[in-house]
């Protein structure tokens, strides 16, 4: 199959020509040039469907391998029983629930970028929000898998759904897990709709620029007859705005509900009132860190240097830093409320986390999640790709550890001293499935970026137009008008 753009010219193969002023491919693009043409944007994005760097295929292979490892672990666990994950009757949850929370957290960054910043008219989001939105959907799908993996009898998971039945038996609406089921389900549905809705104009561009093959059929179907008429655009904007408002509510309530899995229980260390905001901000924080990682990967893999440029990165990093600081504040607040509170069990718990069997991990997470983000405060490192790559990974490790530190030491050190259990190190099955979840997530992202527009063409064009106007005004000495988009 060959892809052809509409005027029958072959895709531009020469990467150097993709850049607006002939810079080498790896050069840092400070900001998107106002001189780039709309056609250039279109061709750059359409081009990404066809010829990513070879490392893309290697990445796909690695992801498939990771998934294979996880599937093998899961098959083993399914057949033998959950015992192979090496949990105990005290440490009943472990890595799966921690990872579930982690992935739900990752999903929040997309909503932040695409919906919240959309409402605040932040221009710089325009190149990154599409893949961020995709991350939301895929991270939720990954989180959902962890729920399944976690259940003792996953084949009976439909019992959680309140479906009418002859037995007159319902799911228990008091249980936070049922709320989880509702909220994650709704969030996943809405974020997929949001993602899809936002893509319609771009899918129409693809439809119009690709001539044959399954892609043509796919884009034709998905574009839903988009013609770009005034009326289409008007309705589109209303729908998009409404969905974004709705999604923000869902995102906030989503992670609040996930936090109530913990906060609603009696466990000392879980039973903390400030958990919902703490979880939501933590989610945005870890999600943004993940965003930076994916940013750097996509930028290289799909040659998006022009659009995923340094200016965007700097803003992303600054946003992450700001979130890190809010999260740090909430983290300290959470500890302070425990420390000064009356619940001695929770205080013992905190003390145990800092000094007990998991102390090393706890301090490591504190270091990674509180101290490391300070690197982002320095301008010189904000656009340093290797530094940011490593840093964003470290932050994610830190935030995963944070979730794990909420689950594992807390369960091991409950109200009942006789059943304390500090020895349950997760087995290879748990690690394998966690490992696979990253592969699964990355695979979904990679496939998405190869099939769908990973950066939003129409919004970039809007931005481009605004910049052009801005440049023009700068040239003629008039002030730029606001709200050109």
């Amino acid at each position, binding site marked *: 199959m060959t892809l052809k753009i509409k005027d029958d010219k072959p895709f531009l193969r020469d990467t150097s020509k993709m850049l607006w002023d002939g810079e080498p491919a790896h050069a840092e693009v400070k900001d998107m040039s106002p001189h780039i043409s709309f056609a250039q944007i279109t061709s750059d994005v359409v081009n990404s469907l066809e010829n990513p760097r070879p490392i893309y295929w290697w990445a796909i292979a690695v992801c498939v391998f990771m998934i294979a490892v996880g599937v093998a672990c899961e098959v083993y666990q399914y057949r033998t029983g959950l015992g192979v994950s090496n949990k105990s009757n005290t440490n009943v949850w472990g890595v799966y629930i921690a990872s579930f929370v982690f992935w739900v957290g990752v999903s929040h960054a997309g909503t932040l970028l695409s919906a919240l910043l959309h409402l605040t008219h932040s221009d710089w989001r325009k190149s990154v929000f599409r893949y961020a939105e995709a991350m939301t959907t895929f991270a939720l799908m990954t989180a959902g898998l962890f729920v399944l993996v976690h259940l003792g009898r996953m*084949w009976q998971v439909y019992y959680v759904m309140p479906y009418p039945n002859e037995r007159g038996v319902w799911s228990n609406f008091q249980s936070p897990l049922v709320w989880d089921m509702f909220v994650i389900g709704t969030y996943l549905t809405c974020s997929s709709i949001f993602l899809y809705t936002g893509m319609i104009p771009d899918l129409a561009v693809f439809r119009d620029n690709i001539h044959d093959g399954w892609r043509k059929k796919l884009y034709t179907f998905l574009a839903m007859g988009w013609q770009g008429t005034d009326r289409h655009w008007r309705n589109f904007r209303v729908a998009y705005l409404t969905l974004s408002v709705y999604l923000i509510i869902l995102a906030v309530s989503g992670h609040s509900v996930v936090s109530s899995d913990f906060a609603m229980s009696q466990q000392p260390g879980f039973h903390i009132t400030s958990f919902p905001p703490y979880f939501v901000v933590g989610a945005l924080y870890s999600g943004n860190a993940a965003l930076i990682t994916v940013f750097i990967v996509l930028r290289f893999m799909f040659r998006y240097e022009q659009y995923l440029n340094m200016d965007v990165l700097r803003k992303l990093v600054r946003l992450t830093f700001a979130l890190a600081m809010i999260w740090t504040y909430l983290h300290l607040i959470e500890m302070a409320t425990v420390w000064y509170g009356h619940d001695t069990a929770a205080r013992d718990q905190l003390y145990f986390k800092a000094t007990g069997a998991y102390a090393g991990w706890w301090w490591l997470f504190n270091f990674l999640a509180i101290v490391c983000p300070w690197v982002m405060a320095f301008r010189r490192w904000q656009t340093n790709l290797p530094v940011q790559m490593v840093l964003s990974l470290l932050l994610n490790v830190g935030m995963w550890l944070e979730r794990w530190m909420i689950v594992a030491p807390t369960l091991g050190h409950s109200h009942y001293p006789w*059943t*304390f259990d*500090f020895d349950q190190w997760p087995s290879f099955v748990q690690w394998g499935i966690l490992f696979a979840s990253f592969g699964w997530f990355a695979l979904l992202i990679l496939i998405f970026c190869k099939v769908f527009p990973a950066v939003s063409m129409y919004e970039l064009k809007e931005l481009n137009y605004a910049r052009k106007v801005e440049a023009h005004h700068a040239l003629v000495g008039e002030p730029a008008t606001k709200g050109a988009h």
Partner: protein
Amino acid sequence: MENNFNRRDFLKVLGWGGAAVTLSACGNTSVENGTEFVTSHSTEAMPEYAIPGVYVHFNSTCAQCDGGCSIFGRVREGRVLKLEGNPESPINKGKICGLGQAALQAHYNPDRITHPMLRKGDQGETITWDQAFALIKDKLTGVEGGEVAFLTGATSGHTGALLKNYVDALGSAKHYAYEAVTPTVVRAANKKSYGVEMPRLHIDKARVVVSFGADFLGAWVSPVNFTQQYAKFRKGSDGMRGVLVQVESKMTLTGANADRWLCIRPGTEGIYALGLINALGAKGFKVPATAATIARDYTAERVVQETGVSAEHTEKLVAILMQRTPSLVLVGTAAEGYAHGSENAAAITLLNHVLGNVGKTMVYPASVPFPQIEPKAGGRNTLHALSDDMKQGKVKVLFTYGSNPVFTSNPSVEFKENLQKVPFKVVLTHYRDETAMEADLVLPLDSVLEDWGSSVPEYMAETAQINIQQALSERLYPETRGFGDVLLALLKQRRPAEYDKYEDFYAYLRNAMVTNKVALGASSGTSDDIFWRDTVSRGIIKLPATTAKVSGKLAAIPSLAKLTLPNAFAVDEAYPFHLIPYTSAHVRDGRHANIPWLQESPDPITTIVWDSWIEIHPTTAIKLGVVEGDIVEVASRSGAIKVMVYVFKGIHPDAVSIPMGYGHEAMGRYAKNVGSNVFKILDSIFDRETGELALHETRVKVTKTGQKVRIVKDEGPYGGGQAGKRIALRKTTDKVNLSKEV
């Protein structure tokens, strides 16, 4: 109780094909698809008591230990599913211990031997019972009676009588009754002091119990009875809660329940007892002159110095002993297990005389008027005698039953080696245990739940009693036989005229009981059938209690004047620690090691499961540089074993303790290679008077091996702490009266 007149016949036809075993599943299974069988339970008419889906209760007797508790089995569709205590029995009054419950898993044990086995080289060959009996007959021909030996555990009842008859029939064959752990020395001391071997104890009537290492709540003599008495004693039927003081070097279950656990230097129990007598006299208590003379030298200072028990606690104990009477002083395994065990025990029994407890809380025991079925118990000295005989080639044919001497013997006996010198060894057993592995012929026995029998417990509460052991189910394996059946078959070879009339042991037992029905309390007009039905359905025959009294006279005690106690042990530099082999209430001497419930049931004190351990005091542990979970080598002059460390404060710093019964090399999947066998390092030091092996006399050294394991126990990393939570609460008060409580 149900009619079980025709039960044996019924059980015979019941069979296993009929009992559909419900192995329920709630996994992926849904409504079944018609593959499950449902069969009528027998081709015979269904007796009223065998309704499918309905439990029926049948009385029997527990044979897990020699306590003689009466039990009933809940039987459903031919399977025994649960054992409960028989409320009619004065011994256990409807209760049953964990060991007794576990008889079920001995019955359904997957490692039971199912066929008679004959040694062929290293292999066992399955043979029939006829072949086996023919072989025994063959081997016994040309052998003099004196060259045949029987080694059994404690026996009583009609199997005991049959055994005696068979031994007689063989000529001068010897019967060695051997129990690995049994209070032989205490029996002897009691006999001397009170005139009876095992007086009946009234723990419930005592206000203070001072127990010198008698683990009467755990594994001593009749724990079910004593625990029930203990509950009454604690409630204090006469308005004052009983006070329990335990004097021992290693905390037993009883010690863990004591109001005061006095940790005493190993071997100085007698000194402490005499010190108490002296202190009582000093406080103005009227101590008989004989006793005062003996105890004269045991001043408070000397007692503190030698025993390590603080003077404060001794004073308090003396005060409470004077104040609250009657009291009761018990001598247990810990006090008797030394070379001077008899002296220790004598000194402690003396304390009972001084306190005036004899006749009050310690009374004459009941006994059955049939000497031939009385319990016959023996200690370890019999094993030595047998082993010597075997070494000298005096034993040509050896039968063993109810004991596992290869496992439980101490190394210097060289039992296993000497066993090789016996040309023909017949082992009657349930499992392929260590002794069975050495046998030439292994005869599989019925489990206690499928066998008939009778027994007379050594310790009887209230009245004399004969317990009837009823088969609760049909044989699991058709090729097993009861011990009585085997003996009867052997007797038929010797005295056919006398025994051929009995089809099996059941017939013999029935006949023996029915013949003596008048002596057993039935009126002569009762028909045999009714008497037998009645007896079996009750499971117990109560005979009137004896009215004799224990001798309460100090002067009557022979050799009292000669009572001298050695000083506390000198420090042995090479082997610095006293080894205290501890009788686990679960596996006892190892005979119950193959029962998974008991292996998984945590040791009450340490909460360790599935393993053996060594208890070491924290200060000692620091000296040795070991922490919990370290594997140490425990070496005595006789051998060495490796075992894991449990650091525990309930043990004297000079002592270490290892539970008995673990470390099987054979026996079955649950017992094999679990823990280490402490019998293998016991030194051969004997009690000077009785010749019984002094179990606690072994000295060991403990060296670190550098290996480490995670110790398998129920308690968490917090140990016995409560982390400031109100979980297990305690009131410490004086003169509590709980008797008014509901």
